[in-house]
């Protein structure tokens, strides 16, 4: 079954990102593209739409992503505010 499933990628607006919007079953990429257009954009327009065979996508192990404890607070803007506040608290008097 999975060999005829295509993931559908689409970009709604020219300044938007390409996103995975769903999937279709089709005998080949050409028909998959037609189906994708009619199924996901039959009411409106989109900038671009594409299909990719499902088995061509490599997904990460989700648990690995969500469970990895990555403390990257130093690369967020809030970090500087906090750092300044902490420094101010250290100045005596």
């Amino acid at each position, binding site marked *: *079954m999975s*060999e*005829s*499933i295509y993931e559908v990628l689409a970009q709604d607006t020219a300044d938007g990102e390409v996103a995975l919007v*769903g*999937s*279709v*079953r089709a*005998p080949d990429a050409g028909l998959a593209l037609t189906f994708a257009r009619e*199924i996901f954009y*039959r*009411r409106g327009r989109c900038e671009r739409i594409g299909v990719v065979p499902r088995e061509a996508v490599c*997904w990460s192990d*989700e648990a690995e992503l969500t469970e990895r404890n990555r403390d990257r607070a130093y690369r967020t803007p809030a970090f500087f505010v906090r750092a300044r506040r902490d420094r101010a608290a250290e100045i005596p008097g």
Partner: protein
Amino acid sequence: MDLQAFEQHIAAGGAVDLHDPMPDEYREQVRRIMGFQCLAEIVGGLMFAEWVPRTPGLLRKMMLTAKVQDEMGHAFYLLRTCEDLGLRRDQIVEDYLCGKSKLLNVFHYRIESWHEWPIAALVQNSAALVQFKSLVRTSFRPYARALKRILKEESFHYHNALDLTRTIAGHGGEHRAAVQAGLEKWWPHVLAYFGPPDSDSEHNRRNLRWRLKVDSNDTLRQRWLDWIVPVLESLDLRLPDPALARGGDGRWTYTEPDWDGVRDVIRNGGPATAYWHDRVRDNYESHGWVRDLVYGEQPAA
């Protein structure tokens, strides 16, 4: 997967996506519910589709074609997720054709005149909207995503049905009378569509616990009445149930549907059960060769 931990996760407002671990019973039940709704969209779509060729107006014909196309689209969203959960799409149709899957009561009847079309669509669409707006809070995320898409489109169907009903009833006389007759025919069916008052069965408790059902049947029925009664009144249509009244607590009382009769129709069929069954079979089987040809034997990559 440990059932107790899973249930705690759901009870705490947690949700489940396609690739998350889930108990087999949950996966099975999600598949069953979505497959069931998919079938309802296919047969329900046919009920409205058979009037497209006779629609008396070119622009309206385009609108009705769009509505019917959407119904197939709704079936599609659900069906793709069922497939991702390991339920073959052919199985969904074939279980219906061999009598294994039972349809809700409304799908055992037929729209018998053009004047019935808009009012049947109006009461059915509003009932479906009430149900989907509740179910969109389900624990199964792919189902919620499909329902969100469906809700957006059902809203067009509802307004299309409302506008057509108003236009036709607005011609008065026999036209209004025919719309009224349609309302009287479909009212008890749609009231029963939400199902009998919830039993305290483990099956029902489990669906609620797993958030594969969000509100009780009676809650949904009350919500539908809250919505549809003023709409029908604004159309100057007579409410078909003399016992229908709103109590001081805001709750509606109404003549209970004949639940034994409803169960009998679901189990043994109604006036149009065989008709829909044969239509689906003809359409489905006469295209079997195409599906076999394009999906039967995959050439080696």
